[in-house]
């Protein structure tokens, strides 16, 4: 996953010489106690989850001694914040905060910019979007020239940062930019950047996400799935990622949408081409069907890659149908898809008598692909309803979603489930 936890981000900042609080990560209350003993002063115990508003949710608490640290860690570990289970806490020295700043680097894709933008604010500790614009200084980085130390100094000067702390804040901004560039971040921020009562500048909290396409350059980060998502990867996501990892022939993207399927009405969804695949989901939703997963195989993947994708999609328990949503007149030769899907259906459908499929495949080599699909599934049709459509139905999203719905209803009837 391209997103990093606070404790991971802080380690990267440390290597870029940005001061971080003394502390370590713990997975058990006992570990938390030991870390607090080592620190030897009051500590903060911070839940490690990908969610904002941890403080409000009770995910950040303080402890005056190791015994208290153990107790607080016990409370926080295992709690849920915005549906995310806390599995680790960061135990850190408690800081005496005098002032809070914000530093962030984002990439601006707009026409006039297309470059990293470094932002600095004297109003840290809150959501940067709620800070008035006169309290934010920013500079667009010319990537061919690089970001210089005096760019960072100028950001501080613009907002009248006191001369005493100005050099160390500029160093921290520089360190964040170096981390951003060195680790190919998509976004990175330190918020708050803390000025302590004794005048030290320390990264209080940080958020970082690594660019998916750059993850391969950083095996040391141990990122399991190089895909951005709001939640950590499920086992299913990890299996799906193995299909894509290391195979650059076409794209295979699969994401689990409903890890805990509740009730009926889920189908395995296999889209082709992002734009078109999204259309199919809209139509299925209108028919009261939900997708158990989102998927897309496009950019001319090999039959082997398509087969693996279809196999993973079809292997999901509790789905009531499979849709190949090729809502595009594709330029890629579609026989690779036909071969891959047929192989997966031949292996998976015998395990599920009555399980229905709706297949739409259009584009280059469509005639040949239709033959492959029809021949390859002819004998399966005795047990499983499989409807196959071509480019005359490419925009018939409603029709195809209705067919899927009708077949799902029949499948329920066969299983004695009331619709």
């Amino acid at each position: 996953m391209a997103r990093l936890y606070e404790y991971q981000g802080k380690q990267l900042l440390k290597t870029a010489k940005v001061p971080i609080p003394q502390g370590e990560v713990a997975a058990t209350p006992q570990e938390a106690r030991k870390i607090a003993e080592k620190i030897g002063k009051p500590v903060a115990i911070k839940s490690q989850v990908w969610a904002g508003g941890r403080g409000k949710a009770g995910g950040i608490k303080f402890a005056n001694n190791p015994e208290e640290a153990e107790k607080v860690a016990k409370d926080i570990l295992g709690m849920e914040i915005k549906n995310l289970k806390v599995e680790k806490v960061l135990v850190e020295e408690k800081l005496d905060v005098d002032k809070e700043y914000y530093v962030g680097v984002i990439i601006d894709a707009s026409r006039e910019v297309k470059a990293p933008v470094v932002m600095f604010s004297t109003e840290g500790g809150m959501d940067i979007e709620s800070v008035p614009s006169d309290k934010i200084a920013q500079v667009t980085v010319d990537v061919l020239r690089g970001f210089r130390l005096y760019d960072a100094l100028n950001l501080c000067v613009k907002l009248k940062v006191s001369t005493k702390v100005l050099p160390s804040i500029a160093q921290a901004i520089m360190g964040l930019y170096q981390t951003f560039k060195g680790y190919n971040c998509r976004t990175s921020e330190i918020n708050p950047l803390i000025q302590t009562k004794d005048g030290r500048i320390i990264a209080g909290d940080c958020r970082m996400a690594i660019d998916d396409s750059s993850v391969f350059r950083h095996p040391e980060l141990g990122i399991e799935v190089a895909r951005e998502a709001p939640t950590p990867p499920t086992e299913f996501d990890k299996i799906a990622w193995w299909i894509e990892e290391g195979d650059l022939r076409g794209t295979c993207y699969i994401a689990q949408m409903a890890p805990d399927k509740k009730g009926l009405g889920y189908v395995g969804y296999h889209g082709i081409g992002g734009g078109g695949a999204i259309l199919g989901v809209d139509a299925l939703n209108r028919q009261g069907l939900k997708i158990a997963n989102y998927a897309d195989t496009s950019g001319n993947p090999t039959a082997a890659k398509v087969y693996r994708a279809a196999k993973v999609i079809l292997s999901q328990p509790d789905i009531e149908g499979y849709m190949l949503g090729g809502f595009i007149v594709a330029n890629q030769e579609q026989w690779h898809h036909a071969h891959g899907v047929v192989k997966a259906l031949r292996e998976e459908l015998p395990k599920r008598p009555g399980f229905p499929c709706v297949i739409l495949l259009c584009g280059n080599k469509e005639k040949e692909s239709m033959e492959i699909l029809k021949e390859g599934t002819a004998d399966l049709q005795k047990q499983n309803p499989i409807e196959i459509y071509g480019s005359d139905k490419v925009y018939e999203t409603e029709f195809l979603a209705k067919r899927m719905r009708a077949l799902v209803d029949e499948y329920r009837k066969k299983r004695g489930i009331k619709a």
Partner: protein
Amino acid sequence: MAILIEKNTTVLVQGITGREGSARAAFMKGYGTKVVAGVTPGRGGEEVSGIPVFNTVEEAVKAKGPIDASVTFVPGPGLKEAVYEALDGGIKFIVMPVERVPLYDILEMLAYGKQKGAKLLGPGSIGIISPGVAAAGWLGGTPEFAKRVFVPGPVGVISRSGGQSGTVPWAIQQAGLGVSTVLHVGTEPVLGMSFSDILPLFEKDQDTKAVAIFGEIGGPYEEEAAEAVRKKEFTKPLVVYVAGAWAPEGMRFSHASSIIERGKGSAKDKIKSLKEAGVHVVDRPDEIAPTLKRLLGV
């Protein structure tokens, strides 16, 4: 007439000996494109579909003279090197049908391209085609498929979805119309040319009477297109569809650029900004072609 790729545009294929490179070089040449050379280091002296292969761009330019455009069939991690090489070889239009390109590499190559005064399409663009004239990339796929789907006519098409850049022209053709030039802008988080760069080119092209855009959630591109219309950089009829209204916030789809970030770039935002600029926004993609017909009075 067409834009960016025309009858006399000379084309170089970087990575011509690979799986996609060799297949699409054959397609481009078979479709009538002037493919003058290919490059693969270590394979100089060979031929692919009758196209001479060179070791470097410099060597190709020395042998063939200045080249107008390059198509880069190289893996994502190697794209930056290929683009720098093409730019240093004096090539001013580069089509990049390459996905999974490291983001910082993209920023550097776009900045260098800008410095060199070049136009870059992609990364992640499947290509550009001017029907019956020429193609660069793999939009069109094979000559017979390209001939069947892309018929010449008055509509310029720009798409953020690779697949839809074939589907929209196909629907336009089914409705009895045709297309002037079709482009896929690409799928990566930061792109070279986008709607607002391409619309002014269609404005100047006399054969283009209207433009259709297949948009998507995420990114600033649809809002920028609306801005181009407001600034009168484009004054011909424009029909836009924006896909992905159902997407949950923070979800990322295979089109790497389709990210809904910080409340911007949602389908709702885009549609509002386009409508305010007077653009014809359709609710479903199958309404694109009928709307074009109505606006063109045919």
